[in-house]
């Protein structure tokens, strides 16, 4: 393969940039809000007004504040001499003479008006605020390129120091040095289990084998979680680079990305990214002219949540039914086709290149003693600002919910946050001082998990929240082990019975016993963690359960709408309802 010069590509790319740029978010959130229409309008208008020499429209990734989408960022290089009307500089980012302005909810009309701004006309569009607490309390490590880099153009990533980390390790690092650097950084797996990444890499590296595999788990399935999706759609090359570095360190020449089929845009952008990297010789054979070969292939899931569990994921990659198998043996020793296999989450790989480029000390300087670095959270639910949030680990929950999230919508109060999706638990508002790191949340009976964070307010019934997640686990159970297959159905029934007001104290006891049993005896993480939302709400909101029991005073019952109507209840429930004719 030809030796390619990253610097040359980067400088060519930067030289080709126009002084004024319009960055349109084209990640799934803004696309679903109609970003495509705005993007087309921008291009049309730039052409129509003959601004093609000075204004460039670019499709970029997520700019975090998803609830205000479609988001658009206008970048003006020389603000003093630009005809663009920027008398009001509030909420902008100024860097020397360059200025960045954020716009919310940009549709065709506002897009037209923004472009007309470059001819000196008044801009009629909703201005966003980069100086608001939502942005000011966040950091940029993993999301560094999101909103700046064009995900479908490798040159754009290279211009943002992309693939420098890979180049560096291939030329200046021994295999052990890479693993040592990752270990020193203190990075822990971002998929939920938080296993130290360096140790995992070391284990795979030490297992001698002719063939080894590097797998990226992009089967993100938790309700309310979209951080992996955002990263793949906004900055796919970052993940590829992380995987290639892992491949080099472990002596592997084959990587797989297992991405869920429900993410068609992520699949498409990954495919484009892989093709472009192959073409430049950054992936494939003799990478950067060195003897290192590394190939990455995509595997798409077919809609099973359990395939995010590593043994089920591997079974699925191998073309088998996606059901988990007991560990040990662990994938590090006996993985894909019996070979040592490294499995890491999208976000874990997303950190790798930055650690190599900036050094492990830089990374270890962020976060807490045991949880290093930053974490991307998906803040959703009943808060004012919902979207993607990146903060150093150890940030207190109240900062995320109240400062960044803006607190509850008017008139309501936040009651709890649910972290970690169907495997996690609820943390009551009284405990919001707790720092968000792996160990602190585990102590409270929840988990940090992959990063879902759902805010619940006084209009949510905690029993209903527990029932919602239990229904999810019941529908997603693969059916292999009995406690998960049959236990989740019974827990769900008991929760419904409580919600219907026909349960008694004996039912509550039974519910608790069953939850503990399912947790202790299930085969894989899905079943073992499925009772967590129920157990944690029982721990912190027991009075809500008790108020719904038959024996309780019916006047005190909370009467609130349910998260989902009985018509949408799970498959098994429908089945039984049919047979009973009820």
């Amino acid at each position, binding site marked *: 393969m030809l030796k390619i010069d990253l610097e040359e590509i980067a400088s060519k790319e930067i030289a080709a940039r126009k002084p004024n740029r319009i960055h349109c978010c084209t990640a799934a959130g803004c696309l679903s809000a109609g970003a495509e229409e705005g993007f087309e309008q921008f291009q049309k208008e730039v052409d129509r007004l003959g601004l093609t020499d000075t204004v460039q429209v670019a499709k970029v990734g997520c700019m975090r504040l998803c609830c205000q989408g479609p988001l658009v960022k206008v970048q003006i290089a020389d603000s003093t001499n630009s005809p663009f009307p920027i008398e009001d500089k509030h909420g902008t980012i100024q860097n020397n003479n360059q200025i960045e302005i954020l716009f919310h909810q940009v549709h065709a009309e506002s897009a037209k008006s923004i472009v007309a701004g470059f001819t000196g006309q008044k801009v009629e569009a909703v201005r966003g605020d980069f100086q608001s607490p939502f942005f000011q309390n966040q950091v940029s490590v993993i999301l560094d390129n999101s909103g700046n880099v064009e995900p479908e153009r490798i040159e754009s990533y290279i211009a943002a120091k992309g693939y420098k980390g890979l180049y560096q390790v291939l030329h200046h690092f021994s295999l052990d040095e890479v693993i040592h650097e990752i270990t020193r950084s203190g990075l822990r797996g971002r998929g939920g289990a938080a296993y130290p990444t360096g140790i995992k890499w070391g284990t795979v590296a030490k297992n001698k084998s002719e063939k080894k595999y590097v797998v990226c788990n992009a089967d993100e399935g938790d309700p309310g979680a979209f951080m992996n999706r955002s990263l793949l759609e906004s900055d796919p090359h970052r993940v590829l680079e992380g995987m290639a570095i892992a491949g080099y360190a472990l002596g592997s020449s084959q990587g797989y990305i297992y991405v869920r089929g429900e993410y068609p845009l992520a699949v498409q952008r990954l495919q484009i990214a892989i093709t472009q990297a192959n073409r430049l010789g950054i992936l494939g054979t003799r990478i950067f002219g060195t003897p290192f070969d590394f190939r990455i292939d995509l595997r798409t899931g077919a809609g*099973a949540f*359990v395939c995010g569990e590593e043994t089920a994921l591997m079974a699925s990659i191998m073309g088998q*039914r996606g*059901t988990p*198998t*007991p560990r*040990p043996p662990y994938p590090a020793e006996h993985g894909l086709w019996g070979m040592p296999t490294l499995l890491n989450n999208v976000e874990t790989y997303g950190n790798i290149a930055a650690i190599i480029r900036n050094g492990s000390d830089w990374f270890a300087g962020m976060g807490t003693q045991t949880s290093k670095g930053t974490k991307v959270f998906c803040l959703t639910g009943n808060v004012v600002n919902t979207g993607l949030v990146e903060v150093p680990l150890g940030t207190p929950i109240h900062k995320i919910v109240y400062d960044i999230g803006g607190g509850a919508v008017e008139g309501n109060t936040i009651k709890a946050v649910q972290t970690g999706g169907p495997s996690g638990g609820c943390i009551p508002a009284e405990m919001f001082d707790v720092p968000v790191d792996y160990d602190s949340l585990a102590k409270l009976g929840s988990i940090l998990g992959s990063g879902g964070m759902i805010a619940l307010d006084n209009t949510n019934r905690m029993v209903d929240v527990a029932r919602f997640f239990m229904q999810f686990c*019941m*529908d*997603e*159970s*693969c*059916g*292999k*082990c*009995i*406690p998960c*297959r*049959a*236990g*989740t*159905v*019974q827990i769900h*029934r008991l929760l419904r019975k409580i919600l219907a007001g026909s349960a008694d104290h004996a039912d509550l006891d*039974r519910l608790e*016993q*069953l939850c503990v*049993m399912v947790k*202790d*005896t*299930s*085969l894989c993480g899905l079943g073992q963690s499925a009772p967590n939302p129920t157990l944690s709400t029982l721990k912190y909101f027991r009075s809500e359960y008790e108020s719904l029991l038959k024996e309780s005073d019916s006047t005190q019952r909370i009467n609130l709408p349910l998260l989902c109507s009985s018509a949408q209840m799970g*498959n*098994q429930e429908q*089945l*039984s309802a*049919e*047979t*009973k004719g009820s």
Partner: protein
Amino acid sequence: MSVVTLTINQQMITANAGDTILQAAKDAGIKIPTLCYLDGLSAHGGCRICLVEIAGSTKLQPACFMKVAEGMQINTETHKLKEYRKMIVELLFAEGNHTCSICVANNHCELQAMAMAVEMDHDRFDYIHPPKEIDISHQRFGIDHNRCILCTRCVRVCDEIEGAHTWDVAGRGGLAKVIADLDQPWGEADSCTSCGKCFMACPTGAIFQKGDSVAQTEHPRNKLESLVMAKDKKQWHV
């Protein structure tokens, strides 16, 4: 091969390194209850009946999968384990449609025997009564999904001993079921050799011989055992 010593229920035993806890216990004459496990087939790890406690480990481990190690201290009959086993059996009864009194396998059923072994006198959980199919399209055998506990013995015996792989599992959660070929009626499954090994392996009355009446079905397990002996140990019954 090296030998390790370990204790099961405070009884010291020796075992070959590489054996599973279940194998080691069996060799020492200690019975660990199982449901999906069948000698000669690969372990499945799905029924969770054989879970044991290992000192120093917070997680319960399936005896059919977990390998023995030197100095391991295993408990198989703690109060917690007994309670969990009972709950698992209750969950199975609540999940399917198991009516012993009208079942072909009455008195010869491993699920029924297990219910008695765990002293299950009633079911604490609601019966789901799911609608399930009966397939009697095969010339000699039938499958009643109402009585199936998804142990996958039929799947494994068909694949590993007969080599036909007629059976597999489709669907998930409570909708999971064993299917013949590509979810066809059993009688139309081309790969089926009609060997009857699935019938021999089935722990309940789910796979039965046509013509059997209530309590008549006895799974001819000894035939399967002699096949396994011949295959694994090269010992032939003539």
